[in-house]
């Protein structure tokens, strides 16, 4: 039997869970077992986890449900696309209330953006950026800051300064464009 998760390795762990009379079978390989979400509320699974951990010497995740699951409660995945880096899918993200890796934010960007907007009220970072960030990010951030300043100067009718800022922004945008063109 082939593992249901990776559809690659031989499944040598066969879990059966019965929830409210509904039987669910899961066939996994040991590698995928490590990533299999187990909820502490399912007590039998708890004991099973201990056993499995001992037998296979794997570190099995027991995921704490509760407040966490509310975070992504409005996510209704239409497909079972997996993150290409950590192979978590949206259903699991929804269940554990956490993403799997930094690439999840790129892979599921369109789904996550409105959720982040609802939690944070914004999807535009305006704080510090890594010192060793790529030149692009730094320039983009500078442009954003300058645009903000530009608006301020226009509000106070300081057009001379505004014109100067506009030129700086243009030259930065050009730099960004040329930098990108040369990369591809």
């Amino acid at each position: 039997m082939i593992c249901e998760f990776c559809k690659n390795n031989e499944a040598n762990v066969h879990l059966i869970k019965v929830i409210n009379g509904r039987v669910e079978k899961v066939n996994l390989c040991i590698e995928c077992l490590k990533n299999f979400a187990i909820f502490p509320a399912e007590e039998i699974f708890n004991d099973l986890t201990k056993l499995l951990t001992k037998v296979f010497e794997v570190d099995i995740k027991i995921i704490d449900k509760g407040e966490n699951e509310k975070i992504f409660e409005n996510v209704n995945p239409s497909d079972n696309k997996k993150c290409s880096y950590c192979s978590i899918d949206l259903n699991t993200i929804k269940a554990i209330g956490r993403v799997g890796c930094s690439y999840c934010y790129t892979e599921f960007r369109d789904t996550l953006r409105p959720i982040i907007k609802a939690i944070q009220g914004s999807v535009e970072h305006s704080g510090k950026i890594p010192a060793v960030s790529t030149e692009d990010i730094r320039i983009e951030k500078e442009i954003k800051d300058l645009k903000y300043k530009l608006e301020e100067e226009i509000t106070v009718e300081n057009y001379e300064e505004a014109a100067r800022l506009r030129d700086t922004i243009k030259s930065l945008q050009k730099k960004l464009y040329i930098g990108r063109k040369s990369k591809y």
Partner: protein
Amino acid sequence: MKSENKKPVFNAGVINNSMPALTAAGQVILTSRARIARNISGFCFSSINTKEEKRDILQSVRDSFLKDPEEKQFYAFYNIARLKKTQRRYLIERHILSPEMLVRMNYKGLILKCDNPDMENTVSVLINEEDHLRIQSVIAGSDIFKVYREVSKIERMLERKINFAFDKDFGYLTCCPTNLGTGLRVSIIAHMPGTVVTGKIEELAKNLAKTGYSIRGLFGENSDVVGNLFQVSNQISLGKNEEEIITEMNAVSENIIEDEIKAVESLKNSKPLSVEDSVLRSYGMLRYAKMLNYGEALELLSMLKLGLDINMIKDVKQFNFYKLISYIGESNLIIKHGIKSEDNEDEVDMMRANIIRKKILKGTEF
């Protein structure tokens, strides 16, 4: 514990009988704290990563501190799983470890710098918590700017050695979207008995929630409030920059101080019967109880402190509320007084009642 590095010993300091009178601000805001969440680029988050990844993360963060010729003299490293139960509980009492750190402790670590044995002012890094790194600083009293400066210093140092996961829209990437952006959460612990007994706390809580702050009871679960102690923190970490977050939090804590001082002043002039009753009952309990559990002691001391501040009680010494409640914490008492049987709660409760009497109730040694 090994003593290869300058590890702070877990013996809590001696409580000083002649405690200096604190400024009003220091009495309302007991502690200030800042923490930033960071994840190392290229590793899966703690939600799903493997123990090999956790091990590598632990090692690289530890090395960043202990193999740095300049930094290593200031920091100690602890493997959470290898600490004694009491030591772990002590670190939780000092708000250094989060309770989450004690769940599945393998490969979880703590980098700690503190300048006094009471662990009152600390800078620390939790490794392999919900995020790979949680850089935090907790100090006694009210100084949000200082705690942020401390964490920012460490972040800058680490940034030279570690690449943090970052996205130009979402900022620093975290396991939970509630921490995205700056990854910065600042919080204060406030003691507000006046605000509570004058019924102003609900209005304050509503206003805080409206402006993006969360307020909850400090020790109680399900936001129960014990000892009129509240933790207030910013909810929003994305879209505002660090300076805005800190400046706003500072304004929030100034408002809280002002509200509490106002409430105390008004109580000095007119004391509702229920408040007088509650203060005097607390006084009586503290004087005569043979055993006090921690929550109970917090409640009673909070009301006694209010009684002192509104000039209702005269024959008790003015005391530093924060120092005293830190001292009578479970683990602190066990460590300081060398109680052998860690689980002998009665013994601890008796000691707590005795200490409170000795320290603050004049002339009543039992």
